[in-house]
C-alpha cells in the first residue's frame, strides 16, 4: 500500500476565452464559425506558429493556459496550502481535482473520496427550510441520507441557527445563511478535502470557528488542499505550501518559508491599476489618469504588504491643460466598504500654495502610509481628482485592492483576528503598585518550603 493521496503529472488546462462563462455561443455564431473556419485554418498554417499549445496564452488574446506542466505529489494526511495571485490557476487546479472540469492535458490521480468546497451553500434553495437545505446540500456534496441523519444535530448545533431550522432560508440573514451552509460543509468526511476561499466570508467570530473546525479535520489525518489569500489562515492551517504563478508551480516549501518568499518576491498580485482610454469619461478632461500603484519599501509594485512596513501609494496622471486648485487623492476602505481615511496631495497649505495652478504635463502624486498602521486584511483604494466645490474631474472608488499581511504586527503571539481596520503599535506602559512581590505564592515552591 502506498500512502499517495494525489498525484499530478504534467497537468494543464487550456481555456478559450470565447467559451468562457461570460460569453456563450449561439447557433448563429457556430454556423458563422463553421463558414470562416477553413479560412482561419489556412491562415494559421501560414503563420509562423506551428502549434497553438506552444503559445503560453500571452501572445494569443483568445485563449489561455490557466495551468501548465504542473507536477506534484501529495501524501495521505498532508495539509497543503495553495497560494498565488488572482489568475494564477488556483481555482482551476481545485476545479480539476474536484472533477468539476477536465484537464486539457496530463493526468491527476486521486486516491479516495474527494470532498470539494469550492463554495459554501451550493444548491441551497431559498424557498426550502434550513432543515430541508441541510439534506439537499448534504446530498449534493456527496453525503448519503443516513450519514446526514447521523450528523444532523451536530450540524444544527455548529450552525447556531437551531431556532430557525424550520424557517425558509430566504428569511435568514446572510450571516445565518453562511453559518448553516458552512456547517453542512464542515461535516463532510471525505478522504481528501479540497477547499477554496470559503473562509473569507462571515463574521470574525464564525471565521475563527471555521478555522478551528478545519484544523480538526487536518488533525484527523485527512488530506487537505486549501486555497486562500489569507496568509495567516494558510500559516495556521498548513504545513506545506504550493505557490502558483501564471499557471505554473513556482515553489513548494514549508509554509512559513513559502509565504515569506511569496510576499517578498512579487509573485503576489500586481498592485497596479492602469486606466485605458475608454475607461476615462469625457468629463475628466483635462485630467487624464494613467495609473495608481502600491509600492513596498523597495519600490516594487506589490499587492501584498506587511503591516510593519511603510506603503507608498502612487497616482500617475497627465494634465492636458492647466487646472487651478486641483487636488488629487485617495480613499482607503476596508473590503466591507468602511472608510479608513481620505487624503489629498494638497492637504498641506504650503503644498496647496505651491501647486495652486498645475501646468500641463505628467505628474506623480505619492504618499506614504506609515508602518504599523493598517490591520491585516484586504483594502480598497479609491482615487479622486477634483477642485473643491467646483468640479470633480475623475473618481474611481475601487481603483485597486491590496492585502496587508500582519506578520510581525503587535499582538501576533495570539493567533486571533484583531477587530478594527488599523493596528497601531501603541506605546503601552504597565505600572504596578504591589509592594511585596515575594508574598505571591508560587506553586511548586510551597511544597519544597514545607519539606525544608
Amino acid at each position, binding site marked *: *500500500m502506498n500512502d499517495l493521496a494525489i498525484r499530478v503529472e504534467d497537468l494543464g488546462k487550456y*481555456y478559450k476565452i470565447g*467559451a*468562457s*462563462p461570460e460569453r*456563450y*455561443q*449561439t*447557433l*448563429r455564431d*457556430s454556423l458563422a464559425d463553421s463558414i470562416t473556419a477553413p479560412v482561419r485554418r489556412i491562415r494559421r498554417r501560414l503563420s509562423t506558429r506551428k502549434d497553438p499549445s506552444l503559445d503560453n496564452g500571452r501572445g494569443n488574446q483568445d485563449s489561455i493556459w490557466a495551468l501548465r506542466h504542473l507536477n506534484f505529489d501529495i501524501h495521505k494526511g498532508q495539509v497543503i496550502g495553495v497560494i498565488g495571485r488572482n489568475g494564477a490557476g488556483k481555482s482551476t487546479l481545485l*476545479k*480539476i*481535482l*474536484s*472533477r*468539476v*472540469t*477536465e*484537464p*486539457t*492535458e*496530463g*493526468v*491527476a*490521480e*486521486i*486516491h*479516495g*473520496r*474527494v470532498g*470539494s468546497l*469550492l*463554495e459554501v451553500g*451550493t*444548491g441551497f*434553495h431559498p*424557498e*426550502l427550510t434550513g432543515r*430541508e437545505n441541510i*439534506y*439537499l446540500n448534504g*446530498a*449534493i*456534496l*456527496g453525503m*448519503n*441520507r443516513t450519514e446526514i441523519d447521523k450528523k444532523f444535530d451536530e450540524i444544527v448545533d455548529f450552525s447556531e441557527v437551531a431556532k430557525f431550522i424550520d424557517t425558509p432560508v430566504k428569511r435568514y440573514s446572510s450571516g445565518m445563511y453562511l453559518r448553516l451552509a458552512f456547517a453542512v460543509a464542515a461535516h463532510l468526511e471525505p478522504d481528501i478535502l479540497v477547499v477554496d476561499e470559503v473562509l473569507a466570508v462571515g463574521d470574525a467570530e464564525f471565521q475563527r470557528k471555521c478555522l478551528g473546525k478545519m484544523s480538526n479535520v487536518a488533525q484527523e489525518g485527512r488530506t487537505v488542499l486549501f486555497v486562500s489569500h489569507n496568509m495567516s489562515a494558510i500559516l495556521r492551517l498548513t504545513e506545506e505550501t504550493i505557490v502558483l504563478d501564471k499557471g505554473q508551480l513556482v515553489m513548494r516549501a514549508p509554509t512559513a518559508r513559502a509565504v515569506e518568499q511569496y510576499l517578498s518576491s512579487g509573485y503576489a498580485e500586481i498592485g497596479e491599476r492602469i486606466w485605458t482610454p475608454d475607461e476615462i469619461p469625457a468629463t475628466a478632461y483635462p485630467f487624464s489618469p494613467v495609473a495608481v500603484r502600491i509600492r513596498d519599501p523597495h519600490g516594487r509594485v506589490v499587492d501584498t504588504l506587511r503591516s510593519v512596513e511603510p506603503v507608498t501609494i502612487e497616482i500617475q496622471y497627465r494634465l492636458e491643460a492647466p487646472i487651478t486648485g486641483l487636488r488629487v487623492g485617495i480613499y482607503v476602505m476596508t473590503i466591507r466598504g468602511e472608510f479608513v481615511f481620505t487624503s489629498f496631495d494638497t492637504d498641506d497649505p504650503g503644498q496647496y500654495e505651491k501647486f495652486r495652478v498645475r501646468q500641463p504635463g505628467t505628474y506623480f502624486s505619492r504618499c506614504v502610509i506609515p508602518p504599523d498602521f493598517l490591520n491585516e486584511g484586504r483594502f480598497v483604494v479609491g482615487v479622486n481628482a477634483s477642485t473643491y466645490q467646483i468640479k470633480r474631474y475623475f473618481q474611481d472608488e475601487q481603483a485597486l485592492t491590496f492585502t496587508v499581511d500582519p506578520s510581525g504586527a503587535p499582538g501576533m503571539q495570539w493567533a486571533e483576528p484583531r477587530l478594527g481596520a488599523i493596528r497601531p503599535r501603541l506605546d503601552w506602559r504597565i505600572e504596578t503598585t504591589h509592594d511585596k512581590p515575594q508574598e505571591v505564592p508560587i506553586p511548586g515552591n510551597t511544597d519544597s518550603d514545607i519539606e525544608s
Partner: protein
Amino acid sequence: MSESTITPKSQDEIIYLRPTRGWSALNLRDLWRYRELIYFLIWRDIKVRYKQTALGAGWAIIQPFFTMVVFTIFFGRLAGVPSEGVPYPIFSYTGLLPWGLFTKALSDAGRAMVSNRAMITKVYFPRLVIPLASVLSGLVDFSIAFVVLIGMIVYYNNVPGEYGTISITPAIVTLPLFILLVLVTALGVGLWLSALNVKYRDINYILPFLTQFWLFITPVAYPASMVPEEWQWLYALNPMTGVVEGFRWALLGTSSAPGPMLAISTAISILLLFSGLFYFRRMERTFADMV
C-alpha cells in the same frame, strides 16, 4: 487474521482525471451511486414547485383540465372531431395526460443544466442526475392529473348519454409500460435539449415553439386514425404518436391494440434515449466551462 488485512476495493479507489475525447461510456455505476441525489433533487423540485402560489398543486389539474375544455369546445363540438366511441372530454384528457408529462419533462430538462449552473460549476456529480431528476419529477403532476381522469370516467359512466360505459379492460396492466415509454421519450429529447442548451441558448426559444408544433403532430386532440393510411408510417415516426395511442388503448380500450405504429414509435424513443445519453456524456466534459 491474515485475511482481514485485505482492504475492500472501495476504500482505496483510484480515480484518474485526464482529458477525454470523443464518445465516453455511460458510467451508470456512478449514476447509481448518486441515486440519493436524484431523489433529493426530485424532492426539491416538488417542494418548491408550488410554493407561494395561491392554488398550489391545483395547477397540476388546471392546466390539462382547461386545455381539455377548450379542445372539447373547438375540436369536439365545433369541428366534430371523432373520438373513437368515448366522450370527447375523456378522449382528449387521456391524450393530454401523457402529453403534459412529456412537455413538462421536456421544458424542465431543457432548461435544467442552465438553471443548476451554480451546482455544475462547483461540485462534481454525474451530470445525468439533473435531466433525470427533472424528467422524473413530472410524475407527481401526472399522478394528480390522473386522479381527475378517474373522476371523469366515473362521472360519464353515471350520466346517461350517447356513449356506453367505459370499462376497464385487461389492457390496463400495460399502462405502466406506456408511462415508462413517455419518460423514455421525454428523457431522450430532454437530454439532447439540455446538452445543446449549455452551448446554444437558442434552445430556450425553440422549446415553446417545439412543444406547440409537436402537439399538432401528436394524436391528442384527434385520433391517429384520421391520418390517411398511406401516411401512417411517417406519422409513427413521431414517438409520441405510439405513446398517446397506446395510453388510450390501455386505459379506455379504444381502437385495436397498437401494432406496427407502436413498434416504430418505441424504436424511435429508444434511439432518442441512447443517442441523447451518449451525446450528453460527450458534451458533459465541457459543461462546467461553458454553462
